[in-house]
């Protein structure tokens, strides 16, 4: 097995140097998700910034995949629109469910394409998705999303 295909440099970099980590002072919505098989934990928070864009905060503990995924998420979506976050989230979920056969769209996914290799490891897909599922919940809680669209 090729460890490098799972642990892309981008993932390891985000794991060691997480971006935007920390909780918000005044979140509009906050969701705590766990991966019950391994105990990975993420709290994802959303608010609006002064320009009406998404403000994101998170904290958690867990494996490199789960924590790097949260960091990539924040880097990609912070300051953007809810619609943008939803489009990226759906693309990411689709990539994770493609069992390694997905053609990731770098335009949409940015650094998150580094997770394409994770989809080949079913036990790790949940780790990668944890922050994204928590984001969806936090946005619903904040009233930014009305329905949780299921991929």
């Amino acid at each position, binding site marked *: *097995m*090729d*460890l490098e295909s*799972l*642990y892309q440099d981008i993932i*390891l970099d985000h794991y*060691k140097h997480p971006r935007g980590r920390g909780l918000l002072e005044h979140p509009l919505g906050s969701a705590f998700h766990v991966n019950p*098989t*391994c*105990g*990975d*934990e993420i709290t994802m928070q959303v608010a609006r910034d002064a320009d009406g864009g998404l403000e994101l905060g998170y904290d958690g*503990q*867990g*494996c*490199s*995949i*789960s924590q790097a995924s949260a960091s990539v998420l924040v880097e990609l979506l912070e300051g953007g629109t809810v619609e943008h976050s939803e489009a990226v989230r759906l693309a990411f979920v689709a990539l994770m469910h493609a069992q390694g056969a997905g053609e990731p769209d770098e335009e949409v996914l940015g650094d998150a394409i580094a997770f394409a290799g994770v989809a080949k*490891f079913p036990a*790790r897909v949940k*780790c990668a998705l944890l922050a994204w599922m928590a984001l969806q919940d936090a946005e619903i809680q904040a009233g930014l999303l009305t329905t949780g669209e299921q991929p």
Partner: protein
Amino acid sequence: MLDVAAIKADFPILDSTVRGGQPLVYLDSGATSQKPRAVLDAERSYYEHTNAAVHRGAHALAEAATDAYEAARSVIAGFVGARPDALVFTKNATESLNLVAYACSNATALAREDAGAIDPRLVLGPGDSIVITEMEHHANLVPWQEVCRKTGATLRWLPLTDEGRLDLSGLDTLIDDSTKVVSVVHQSNILGTINPVRRIMDRAHEVGAIGVVDACQSVPHMPVDVHELGADLVAWSGHKMLGPTGIGCLWGTPDILAAMPPFLTGGSMIEMVTMERSTFAPAPQKFEAGTPMVAQAVGLAAGVRYLEALGMSAVAEHEHALATYTLDALAALPGVRIIGPQSTIDRGSAISFVVDGLHPHDVGQVLDSRGVAVRVGHHCAWPTCRRLNVPATTRISPYIYNDTDDIDAAVAGIVAAQRFFGVA
């Protein structure tokens, strides 16, 4: 000592390669053991020559199948020093423990209708307590939480020391006159700790409580005589001791088995049925509703015979030696911390550890890439992890088919993980 090379040859799966041609090094027997050819052959032979529904029908195969099922019960009961009619087959140990928990909540519900017909030991309410430990597998924790929710009883637990042993200093106050059930694990699946269950069961009996032991990690690994544990009920699983999945065991004293109302009801477990009500067969049939797991019982009996041929004392010695070797090897690795007893005193061979700067999931992934199968996560003992301040652990759990080469492979994998992630 065991002839590990000869034993390995009896387990077809141990010849496998995984992840692109890596020879499999299986160190996850605490989760489930591999199966020797004798077990696979016994199941296959049962289906080829004996298969029929048991305890019903009068044709030749029905009789042969019933004989095979009951003979398996005798073998498995004998393995733990028990009488066959004191051994109940269940789906797994989780079901065995739920059977006991449901006996309590069912008895509590039934006593509201007809208190006279129900053994008061099983009836719980506000003011009563159930005592477990802080190192229980979720299977011996969640069912008791549910009983408490249904009956109003309070759950208490014996706490842990920082080394992952039971702190028994408060034993006599935690288990008091309010205590109706004491249910404790014999050997921890995550820490490897072997608990002084006899002492705890004796205290349970001093206050008139029912004593239950979760023996999932002890019966496969050491000589166990159920009578020596001092419990009323002992639960364990088949698949961790060479047997197939789908069969678990519950041993009970005749007294408690007679007192407990049934868990699952339906065919095979009745004595008489009318449209209004039913009476039940004596144990163990009372607890074996529906067509039972006959092939699995036959397979498990073959597994038991395999272990008996090795001798459980030899199995325990082998594992003790492996535990010593593993503890020494891990202690010599910088950045690796053992979670659980550091010495082999009163400890089994399941050894959990954490690696500084690395999440167990990532450690396990690197080991897996080298063909080494270990368990990562909270091992269905989340509160235990929380108590010992770790989010999760990596666990090496060897068995009769493992040798020091397998431990060396795991240790080399840990070093490789540290290098890959740049933490050493």
